[in-house]
């Protein structure tokens, strides 16, 4: 083996803790890159393959009832490639596994079984057949959650009649990768399922023979979606069309998209931070190593080694660290990436999960890591390598320190302890290293603030949504609007304490060229259960006329209080009106508009119709109520608050806490890596002085205090900077992740800063204490006998 290689290996053995600390920071960068990009690629490839093979549509529309003869006209629209018409109806379900009634979406399968778009993937069993008994294929997540298999029988209320449905198979489909019941916030694995039923059965049950109420369209590549939607809406208007929309507003697609955006953001923000910190650590460590080996370098050059050979020797040292970091990072990234992909597979229904193992990703990750490491090393290595041997063999010029303050300023302050003066001057003697250390520790704080705040924001949203805004125990959505008198029926049900009616009407709201389709909710002016709140959680009164719109809608339409919007109702007589915006309320769960229930009735040209009721339930009579509701033929969908809350938290816990846990660990690695190397180098530089202080009678604790004080200053300075950077990260996340479906409240509580600082300070303290143990081993005798 080459002598220099031997030297290299021995060097690495001697410095292994520092090398490991740097390699771990690099590994964190590589891992986040592999996890982020790898999982993104896996999910994106899986989705696109699934969309392709099962022909996911581009445009979706719902109508009340339209004849199949209309399909010829629809197919003739410019740019339309394929048309798929179905019957889709919500129904109540009585499951033995749940006390509350569950809801099902019944989707028809065309006669021959050859579905044009949104084809189902049959996981097991067989397709349902037309017959006297209802047969159906159940969606997989729902079936798994309730233990439903082929042969299971479910009780459903189909168009007011109780029917038994036999399950013949388990299936998935690309339009329900992320299945959510209407009006829900999060997928309800057990409480909502899709059942695919033969078209003839469903048509007969809902009296829709020769008709459809749900439409999907696939466009030719390059065709204009907006133009097609406009033509389609005109065609569907007469049939109760509620407005066609593209993939970006298709719930399943949009939620999956949000997830992918987050993954991509993570893989763009985090790896550069880790790699920058790693480059800094390499630079710091190598600069010190070279300073210590200055004489050896001179000797090697005197022996005839070229400058290049010496520069390469140190670059090799760094390359070995980078390779170590990359290998650990790959292992960590592949493992965590698989875990994450499996987690996603639980939430999203894919027939198969494609684990992306794009070699390019690994090549890029390795290349970027090596590049960062070499960039960190190049300056230190080149200055050393090109020193003339005679100069290199002399000890370096003594460090030149200077006083920090002028004498007359100094006089204003009490005389500091000399040990404090030592700490301050040493930190300022290496200003860039100190700044680098502060920035590195700050980035660790920032990563923590930037990830931990989401937990608080989620809690804030839960509190906002379920404790302040929607305080009802359950919401009953009727199958079709009913007269106000139905409210008394609801109120008479056992256990109902309060029932508040509401009316929901699909509408298109626009200002200028921007229009959005959504539901206008009509409510009573004074409600106890559901409340409309502004950003500071204060109640906003519903005006007699005019609309209250949510902030996301106001932003999209670019309107404020007092301005008017154009409202086109998509139901009934499809009346249009110019309505004033009476106020803007907060809305984290997308776009919504509210108005007085009577004003909405007037606008609709109807009197006293309600779509459902928000109710509070006496827990004592809850079971009785549920069993009654399960068989109630007139009830549509029931969503239970407690169940929703539980699911919300469960989803959050699994999805968010896994991510946050990983980030806390990674931030800890950064903090440890920075502080450990910083302290080791400081000790290496000041070991002689520290040993001298021990000789002079300073206690171990006092000498260790020098080192801890130095770390303390760096870590302390990093806190406010880290908080600021973290807050910036939070702002960027709110901006980056907010969609029309969902936005996060920018709530960063003091506990977020406290926890972030705690994690970093704790990691720093551990690193500091590990190094401080070396103070005990300072050799007082050797230091007296040698010149530095």
């Amino acid at each position, binding site marked *: 083996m080459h002598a220099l290689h031997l030297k290299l290996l021995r060097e690495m053995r001697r410095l292994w803790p520092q090398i490991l600390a740097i390699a771990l920071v690099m590994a964190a960068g590589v891992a986040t890159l592999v996890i982020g990009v790898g999982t993104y690629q896996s999910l994106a490839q899986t989705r696109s393959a699934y969309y392709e093979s099962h022909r996911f549509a581009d445009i979706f529309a719902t109508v009340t009832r339209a004849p199949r003869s209309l399909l010829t006209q629809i197919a003739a629209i410019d740019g339309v490639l394929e048309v798929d018409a179905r019957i889709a109806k919500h129904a109540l379900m009585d499951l033995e596994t749940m006390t509350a009634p569950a809801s099902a979406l019944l989707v028809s399968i065309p006669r021959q079984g050859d579905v044009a778009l949104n084809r189902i993937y049959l996981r097991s069993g067989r397709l349902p057949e037309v017959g006297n008994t209802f047969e159906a294929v159940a969606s997989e997540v729902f079936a798994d959650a309730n233990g439903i298999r082929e042969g299971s029988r479910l009780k459903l209320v189909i168009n007011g009649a109780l029917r038994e449905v036999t399950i013949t198979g388990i299936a998935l489909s690309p339009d329900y990768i992320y299945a959510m019941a209407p009006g829900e916030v999060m997928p309800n694995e057990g409480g909502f399922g899709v059942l695919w039923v033969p078209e003839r059965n469903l048509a007969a049950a809902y009296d829709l023979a020769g008709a459809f109420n749900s439409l999907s369209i696939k466009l030719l590549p390059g065709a204009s979606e907006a133009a097609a939607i406009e033509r389609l809406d005109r065609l569907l208007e007469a049939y109760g069309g509620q407005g066609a929309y593209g993939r970006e507003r298709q719930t399943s697609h949009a939620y999956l998209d949000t997830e992918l955006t987050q993954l991509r953001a993570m893989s763009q923000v985090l790896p550069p931070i880790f790699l920058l910190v790693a480059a800094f650590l390499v630079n710091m460590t190598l600069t010190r190593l070279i300073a210590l080996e200055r004489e050896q370098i001179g000797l090697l050059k005197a022996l005839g080694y070229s400058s290049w050979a010496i520069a390469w020797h140190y670059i090799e040292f760094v390359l070995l660290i980078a390779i170590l970091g990359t290998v650990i990072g790959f292992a960590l990234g592949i493992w965590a990436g698989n875990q994450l992909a499996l987690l996603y597979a639980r939430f999203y229904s894919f027939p198969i999960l494609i684990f992306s193992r794009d070699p390019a990703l690994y090549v890029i990750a390795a290349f970027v890591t090596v590049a960062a490491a070499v960039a960190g090393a190049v300056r230190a290595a080149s200055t050393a390598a090109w020193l003339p041997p005679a100069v290199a063999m002399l000890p370096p010029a*003594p*460090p*030149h*320190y*200077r*006083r920090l303050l002028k004498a007359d300023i100094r006089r204003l302050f009490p*005389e500091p*302890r*000399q*040990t404090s*003066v*030592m700490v301050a*001057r*040493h930190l300022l*003697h290496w200003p860039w290293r100190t700044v680098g250390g502060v920035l590195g520790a700050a980035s660790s704080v920032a990563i923590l603030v930037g990830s931990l705040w989401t937990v608080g924001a989620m809690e804030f949203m839960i509190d906002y949504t379920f404790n302040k805004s929607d305080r009802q125990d359950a919401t009953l959505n009727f199958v079709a609007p009913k007269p106000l008198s139905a409210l008394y029926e609801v109120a008479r049900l056992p256990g109902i304490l309060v029932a508040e009616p509401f009316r929901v009407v699909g509408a298109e709201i626009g200002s200028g060229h921007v229009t959005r389709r959504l539901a206008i909710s009509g409510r009573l002016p004074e409600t106890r259960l559901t409340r409309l709140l502004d950003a500071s959680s204060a109640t906003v009164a519903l005006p007699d006329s005019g609309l209250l719109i949510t902030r996301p809608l106001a932003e999209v339409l670019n309107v404020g209080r007092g301005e008017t919007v154009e409202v086109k109702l998509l139901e009934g007589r499809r009346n249009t009106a110019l309505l004033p915006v009476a106020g803007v309320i907060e809305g984290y769960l997308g776009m919504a508009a509210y108005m007085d229930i009577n004003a909405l009735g007037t606008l609709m040209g109807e009197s006293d119709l309600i779509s459902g009721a928000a109710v509070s339930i006496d827990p004592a009579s809850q079971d009785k109520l549920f069993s009654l509701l399960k068989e109630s033929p007139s009830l549509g969908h029931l969503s239970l608050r407690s169940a929703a809350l539980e699911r919300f938290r469960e989803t959050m816990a699994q999805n968010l806490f896994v991510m946050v846990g990983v980030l806390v660990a990674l931030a800890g690695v950064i903090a440890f890596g920075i502080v450990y190397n910083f302290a080791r180098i400081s000790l290496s530089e000041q070991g*002689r*002085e520290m040993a*001298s*202080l*021990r*000789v*002079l*009678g*300073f*206690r*171990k604790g*006092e000498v260790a205090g020098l080192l801890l004080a130095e770390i303390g200053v760096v870590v302390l300075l990093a806190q406010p900077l880290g908080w600021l950077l973290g807050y910036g990260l939070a702002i960027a996340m709110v901006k980056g992740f907010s969609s029309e479906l969902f936005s996060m409240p920018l709530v960063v509580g003091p506990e977020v800063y406290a926890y972030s600082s705690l994690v970093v300070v704790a990691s720093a303290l551990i690193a500091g204490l590990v190094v401080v143990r070396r103070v005990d081993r300072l050799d*007082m*005798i050797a*230091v*007296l*006998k*040698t*010149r*530095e």
Partner: protein
Amino acid sequence: MGQPSWCSEATSYGRVARRLTRIKAADTRLSPLSGMLDRSAAPSVAKGEPLLRTSGLSKTYDMGELKVVALNQVDFSANAGEFIVILGPSGSGKSTFLNLIGGLDTATSGEAWFQDHQLTGAREAALTRYRRDHVGFVFQFYNLVPSLTARENVRLVTEIARNPMRPEEALDMVGLGTRMDHFPAQLSGGEQQRVAIARAIAKRPDLLLCDEPTGALDSKTGVVVLEALTRVNAELGTTTLVITHNVAIRAIADRVVNFADGGIASIQVNAQRMSASSVGW
């Protein structure tokens, strides 16, 4: 007396001293460094009274297979106010001896006493206390803190001492009153060594231990440093031990202890001390 100013008593001294200390140790039966944490329990010793003594002090370094005896059965005593020069070639054990009586290292066997406190067997914390309260050190390479000025280097010690002099006073004593605000890198070697002396004496130590204080200096500068040391010894009455392999220095001592092969080979008493300015090398 027309005799040379010093004469040898190497043969009998060790034996006598050993016997004396044995008697004394049996008398006092003090635990190692008991009372060392309280300076008031260690009253200043009048000039001429014994301050430091060792008996059978030995140090063996265990280098795996090899055992190196660095110090072998050394009996020694120093009185308060004495100026002692320890001479000997490198490897003769003089530095090991200084490290042991300075509380920097632990003996393998034998005893070392400072007044009535036993150094051998004392715990690490007690030795630190001993160095902090009683001993001043001066080293060949000065060991100043480069980030502190001359004044601040002295202040570093006065801040943790119980009855220190003002840093300026200490620097004045070594003739550096005008260069107090210079950093070590801005001072010559001799100046740096005098800062080190000022730092060592500022706490008014009972014992000043100097290991090759002129080793890195030329003759002229070395003499200035020696002058500072003798001045401190004369004015403060600090018991001073100077290790050197520079024979020229021996004339300024009360007593000269010659080390060889890990033990004391001979001791000479100078009837008349020469001034530091009159030596040269």
